[in-house]
């Protein structure tokens, strides 16, 4: 069942893995952007978003993800989504996120795309 939002990060060289827990909504999206900005300003340009523990996302959450994607596109960075629930994957497809971001089955697979 859906819990309150939480975010865990793991840094590896020029890549930050963000693992989300719970509903990616206004609060969740803002938190993702805050953590993203903080590491982007410190020179990180590749990001992996592990959504294995998130089953739902709303359009406000998606707007934050688009913000991240746009910023990375301007700096030739990358955002890779992993461990997508089928419903979220379909949501991202319809909202056009995969036009500018990539997806992988697992975090390990995502490292291979960077």
């Amino acid at each position, binding site marked *: *069942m*859906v*819990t*309150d939002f939480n975010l865990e990060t793991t840094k590896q060289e020029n890549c930050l893995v963000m693992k989300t827990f*719970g*509903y990616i*909504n*206004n*609060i969740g999206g803002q938190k993702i952007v805050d953590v993203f900005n903080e590491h982007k300003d410190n020179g990180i340009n590749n990001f992996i978003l592990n959504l294995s523990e998130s*089953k*739902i*996302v*709303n*359009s*406000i959450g998606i*707007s934050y993800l*688009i913000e991240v994607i*746009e910023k990375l596109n*301007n700096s030739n960075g990358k955002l890779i989504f992993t461990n997508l629930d089928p*419903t979220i994957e*379909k*949501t991202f497809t*319809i*909202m*056009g996120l995969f036009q500018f971001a990539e997806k992988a089955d697992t975090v390990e697979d995502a490292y291979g795309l960077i």
Partner: protein
Amino acid sequence: MTTSYQNEIVTKLSLQVSSFQEGFKILANATSLQEIGRNFNHILRGSLLITDINIFFKLSAEDSWQEIYINNKNCKDCLDYISDLKRQQIVLHNNGSMKISVIHPTIDGSYFGLLIGDKLDKMEYNEEEKIVLQMFLQLLDNAYQSYISLKKEKQLIFSLNHRLLQLNTLIDTGIEISKLENRNVLLETALERAVALTNASKGLIEISRNKKVLGIIRLPNNLNLEELSYAQNKIETKVEFKGFQYFVKLIDKESRNGFTKFDDTDEILLNAFARQVLAAVENEHLHKEALENETIKKELSVASSIQKKIIPEKLPIIDNYDLSGINIPSKEVGGDYYDCFKLTDGRYAFIIADVAGKGVPAALLVSTLNASLKAYLDMNLPLSELAIKINKIIYNASPPDKFITFFIALLNPSSGELDVINAGHNPSLILRNDGSLEKIEAGGVAFGMFDMGLPFDGQKLKLNPGERMLLFTDGIPEAMTMDEVEYSDEKLEKFFIKHNKETAQEFIEKLILDVKNFTLDTPQSDDITALCVIRK
């Protein structure tokens, strides 16, 4: 300005056309205000040889200036220069750290403000540079309009995609939850989708019956119900199925700036989700019902085949005797039982019994009776003793509302002597040669009613040549017409007396036909069982 000076400026500006074009291209590609500010700074820096450029923006006259590109933090001391927003202006200042102030209103009611410091060569700004600045401001304005258009276009695409997502999810959810067999998972899935698609931050489904809350599905799962009761920003709907009410509530619609009110589309979506929940719950109920029916059908089929094995397919052939029996269950598995078999001492047992109730429980009791009866009869126990033992077995094997009426007659075929016990069953009938009818009532209470050691009194009778005996269950005298008129014991007795020339099989067939003709199209409400024994 003289004409020659104007011509000179025009010539100089003409030389910068490609620079303006390049500048616009850079500005127009900006995807954020900050980027516009940064790019505009670069353009001015290259064209006017200045580094102290500070750019501000405000969405409306009432808002405060927000910094979008700052080179000199001290520039804020000169914010007074850009406080008068009446019109577009470029003002040169002789004193202070900022030498030029600019206010540039845009088409959507927002403003750019510029504070520009000294040139690199510390020279004063001239009119030509003011004109160049004016032209670049025009570029900034165009780029801003382009940025606004792009932003609106993106918002429109986002909004259209979101509508598509809502429709798609609505369809998918309907299909998905209709396949779910676990009601809680079904409700959780529907709630998750409804919350996400309406941008609600919380939601719940409350299941109630007769105003009593039976369960609540929450999102998130730590949702505080007390806090929820005070929520102003919410929408809710209700669906009902078989006395259960499902209240679906969505709380606090989100926006990028906090919360906003739910709109008509959200109401439509919520109602659509609620209808899908109703359809899925109905489906789940029907599916369960179908499974249960299937299980019952299988059980009945098994019980029926057991019972068919218990009831004899063929009756034994006894010299100088004519036998015929019939069993017509009213359901797939009935509660009636009859049998006839030879004992080890050469006698024959004629048995008829009726279990209170029908279906699988009745079949199980019949099976128990059959097994225990055959075991005890082989032990050659006196019938009164046998009846006590079987009563105990049936009493222990049956629930309080189940009992068996039972009749047994042990026939010595050579003498015609009958050893009989009737445990609460319909009196069996003997038609004597003189045309009189004898009812065999001797015995005790039905098996399984009491376990108090009550005695069963046997009776000894004789079936003389030419006499006949009829064992039957209450399905015959109690067979009813549409108007609930019973066939009756009297009619049966008269029929038995009247049809005294028929063989056992002819008699049974005619009896059943007579009963059917009496009840006509009325569905058979009870099992019909009969056994006719004629001593030739």
